[in-house]
């Protein structure tokens, strides 16, 4: 197996774990917070809210801006 495939596989693995966690978190008995709850917790503070917006802005800048 090539290192390219392993690396891509690892990205997909973490993506799958994230999706799995979120699905599990929606079970009422689960103690795992949903993705939205995690983001809301971070954005509870002004610093967290601005920081997340700055990360979002960075994604766009990184992918499209010089």
């Amino acid at each position: 197996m090539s290192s390219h495939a392993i690396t891509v596989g690892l990205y997909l693995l973490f993506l799958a774990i994230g999706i799995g966690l979120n699905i599990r978190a929606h079970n009422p008995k689960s103690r795992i917070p949903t993705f939205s709850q995690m983001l809301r917790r971070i954005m509870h503070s002004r610093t967290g809210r601005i920081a997340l917006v700055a990360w979002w802005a960075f994604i766009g800048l990184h992918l499209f801006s010089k």
Partner: protein
Amino acid sequence: MTPTVSEARRAAIAVRSRQLARGLVHPMVLAFYIASFFCYLAGDSVRAVYFLGIALALAWDQAHRAARSDPEARAEVVKPAAGGQTSFSTDSAARRQSAMSRYLVAFGVLGLIYSVIVGWFQRYSIPATISVTALATVAIIVAWKISAGSAAQPEQLSMTGMAAWGVVAVGASAVELTSMFLQPSLTVSSYAHPTLSYLSNSVLGSWSGRSVVLFLWLALGWYLARL
């Protein structure tokens, strides 16, 4: 004995310095330092400056607000931001979400038009740079102006659950960093050790791919604004 003016001033400076130091080591601020450092290592000085600028601005903002609410309020809560907006109470968050829901269709159509037009420009071209930078700048300025810490108590989340999400975030970041360091150099991409940016190149090479990614980027911004 009553302290002199110079002693009071020294005490005020000392308090302010402590607040600034606390702001400089806030976890979110630290994340921006780390990002700045790795951008610098990768030879991307513009983005390194962007991250460092955001980190220092957040640290200053924290210290500034702590000074206004000192000595009681240590957390970054309660005080509305400059501009007189209300804090993010449950009520105001509900109002914001309700207002955003009303404009969902209009913003969806505008977002689609934006994505199709800007997606037509080549990546890193001047029109694409201006279009994306302008929108990102407006978003940050608006967030800065209207954001406030919530006066409500934060939702109590399980430490184990948060740790699980932390493992996912750290693990994915570790794969990205490992790939970056296994490249021939930090400024040269590698097929064998692809970073997420490298993998996105194939999608962003076409007009349709760029438009879809731009629309998803806008949708993510909308989602964050609703939270």
